[in-house]
């Protein structure tokens, strides 16, 4: 028995983006980049740890929009095209390149992409979710679900719709994993009553909040965030440890900003002439990131002054940083264990996409951290949140505080002058959906039933927190605004057609193909 636990939690989420109407769609690349740079490298490293006999534990969320995209044939075929185009581009570049540093980097990327693609094709049998399932079955991973479309539940005005978000999240998980999820990631860790009651109703045992969600709980917990609390409904709430997050989160102060690590913002696609790159980019001639980035951060210098990436040097830094992270957690846990009556727990949640996509060396950092803790630490062991509950079921009873893990700790990231136009519409279409369920208890034919189910999908997609987030942070603003409007308008179009009994079947079929999330969804789930 070690002195305390480290629980790393990775939250894997992307908004549902699928555009079958176009052969190439730039925003679909978010998924292909996350698969290539984060999900596959992480799973590959975790398989390696397992095969080495390293006992590591990790909690990972897999949100319903992401899992639905990972199971979509069209998107997965396009992912194969994405990765193979990049392998072909590297082969092409290697034929002409004379610079030794560039060649070295191109070879590194080519080998890496080939390895990952073979892992995807052969080990995972072309299905990334198989990797999550396998590691969960082997006892290394606790996969948890999320609300249906990552809605910020405290911003939802209808209690029934808050329930549907949880119920669909649980149902989606059951259909994929064949069992109920023990934990849930609340979109943006956003909490307000009556969410605890709803989680208990759908059999969810635990979730994760930001530190102040626990510290400002009623009553304020005795152990702060070093142990979870349980609400009167019996739901367990774990708190994010700010110290354990800070070293990894911050691009400036944290490890990812080390000058030896790969530079995110300099992609080779912008340095190759239009003619040579033509067949590898968008047919309309747009250049978008290839993910092949061969420079290091170097220092506080402009992109033109960046030096070439040295993979070996970067991996040396990974070892140093993983060692430093373990050392700091050991000191933290050593002290806590000297004053607490139970083994302290440090919960460190991160966006999965931070590891690999944003911080290129992130998957190797995690693997190195797990290896070091298992082989050398006499103070800490890693644990999943489910395991913690099983081992230490006695908890302080306290009602968690309203909070989120967004900037400022509450909801201003999603509710502000630039985004508040969204919420009256969401409330209105939510009310319409509840009325549809009441007034169309039995659909008069298959077509009407299809339209009602599609209304339910469009409502849930409109409720994704992603669109408001992107608008606020100024990233892909036009696309996010258009998607937010599209889902609201598509709902209203179908709603009016159902009421007028004049359903446009061609457009409905188009929506069914495009917004094909939750194929199992039955609109009657909104029945109050």
């Amino acid at each position, binding site marked *: 028995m070690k002195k305390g636990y480290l629980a790393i939690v990775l939250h894997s989420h992307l908004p549902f983006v699928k555009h079958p109407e176009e052969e190439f769609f730039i925003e679909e690349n978010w998924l292909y980049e996350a698969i290539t740079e984060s999900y596959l490298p992480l799973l590959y490293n975790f398989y390696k740890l397992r095969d080495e006999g390293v006992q590591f534990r990790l909690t990972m969320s897999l949100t319903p929009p992401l899992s639905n995209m990972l199971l979509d044939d069209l998107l997965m075929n396009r992912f194969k095209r994405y990765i193979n185009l990049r392998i072909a581009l590297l082969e092409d570049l290697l034929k002409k390149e004379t610079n030794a540093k560039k060649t070295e980097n191109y070879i590194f990327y080519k080998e890496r992409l080939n390895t990952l693609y073979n892992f995807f094709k052969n080990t995972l049998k072309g299905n990334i979710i198989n990797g999550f399932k396998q590691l969960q079955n082997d006892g290394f991973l606790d996969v948890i679900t999320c609300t249906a479309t990552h809605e910020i539940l405290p*911003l939802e005005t209808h209690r029934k719709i808050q329930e549907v978000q949880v119920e669909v999240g649980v149902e989606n998980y059951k259909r994929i994993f064949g069992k109920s999820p023990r934990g849930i990631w609340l979109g943006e860790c956003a909490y307000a009553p009556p969410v605890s009651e709803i989680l208990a109703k759908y059999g969810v045992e635990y979730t994760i909040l930001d530190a102040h969600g626990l510290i400002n709980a009623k009553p304020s917990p005795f152990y702060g965030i070093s142990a979870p609390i349980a609400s009167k409904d019996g739901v367990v709430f774990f708190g994010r440890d700010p110290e354990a997050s800070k070293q990894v989160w911050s691009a400036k102060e944290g490890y990812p900003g080390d000058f030896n690590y790969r530079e995110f913002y300099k992609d080779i696609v912008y340095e190759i002439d239009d003619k040579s790159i033509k067949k590898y980019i968008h047919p309309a001639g747009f250049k978008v990131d290839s993910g092949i980035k061969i420079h290091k951060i170097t220092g506080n210098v402009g992109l033109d002054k960046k030096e070439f990436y040295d993979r070996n040097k970067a991996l040396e830094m990974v070892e140093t940083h993983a060692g430093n992270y373990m050392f700091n957690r050991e000191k933290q846990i050593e*002290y806590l264990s000297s004053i607490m*009556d139970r083994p302290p727990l440090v919960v460190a949640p991160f966006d999965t996409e*931070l590891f690999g996509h944003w911080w290129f060396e992130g998957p190797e950092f995690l693997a190195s951290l797990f290896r070091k803790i298992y082989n050398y630490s006499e103070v800490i062991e890693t644990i999943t949140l489910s395991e913690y509950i099983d081992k230490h079921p*006695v*908890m302080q009873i306290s009602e968690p*505080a309203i909070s989120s893990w967004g900037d400022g700790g509450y909801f201003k990231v999603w509710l502000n002058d630039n985004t508040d136009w969204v919420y009256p519409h969401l409330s209105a279409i939510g009310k319409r959906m509840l009325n549809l369920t009441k007034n169309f208890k039995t659909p008069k034919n298959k077509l009407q039933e299809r339209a009602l189910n599609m209304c339910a999908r469009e409502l849930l997609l409109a409720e994704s927190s992603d669109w408001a987030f992107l608008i606020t942070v100024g990233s892909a603003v036009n696309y996010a605004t258009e998607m937010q409007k599209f889902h609201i308008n598509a709902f209203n179009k179908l709603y009016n057609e159902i009421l007028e009994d004049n359903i446009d079947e061609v*457009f409905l079929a188009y929506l069914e193909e495009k917004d094909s999330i939750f194929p199992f969804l039955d609109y009657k789930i909104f029945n109050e």
Partner: protein
Amino acid sequence: MENLNKLKRKELLRIAKLHGIKNRNKMKKEDLIKAIKKARKSLEEIKTIEEKLRKELSEKTGEPHLIAIPKEPGYAFINWESEKSGAGILKVYEDKHEKFAIPVNLEQGKSYVKVEEDRVVKAVLGVDENGKFKKIMESNEIIIPTTKKTEGKVEFRDVRTLKKEMPGKTKKKEMEKVVEEEMKTAKELKYLRYKKEGE
């Protein structure tokens, strides 16, 4: 637009499905191509509808409502739309007591209202009728987030049985110091999502 002749049958079937072409699975490759070409016209029409749905959204929802949403400690967002027009009054209640009333346009509006932390807040929209307030509609109730710590009785239970349990010995003062430190670090932690800001 891609050359249909170069596509494999599987890909043609996908496009045919997108176009809602019936009996597509029974068609030969050349028949599929013909059917897709014919249906393409309707895809263009669909794209026109889609373009409209992406770009235009009326400011009004068409659904009378008065909603309250918590924003942050001390602030709530209120939004309303009614079938009536003219001068109205918006009353804001805290823990069932009227906190303030402001003149508003009945037809439509929004306001970020300043309220106390940790209170149950509700809004009511109405009109003045001969010196008396007449309610038109009321909002949902919300709780305003708080930044304050609440002291209270410490109680432990086993989450499996909900049976009361006694905790062991913890150094209280040292623990309080740790919690204080944790809150300080949490406040300092700049929230970063590694998105390409400003892109």
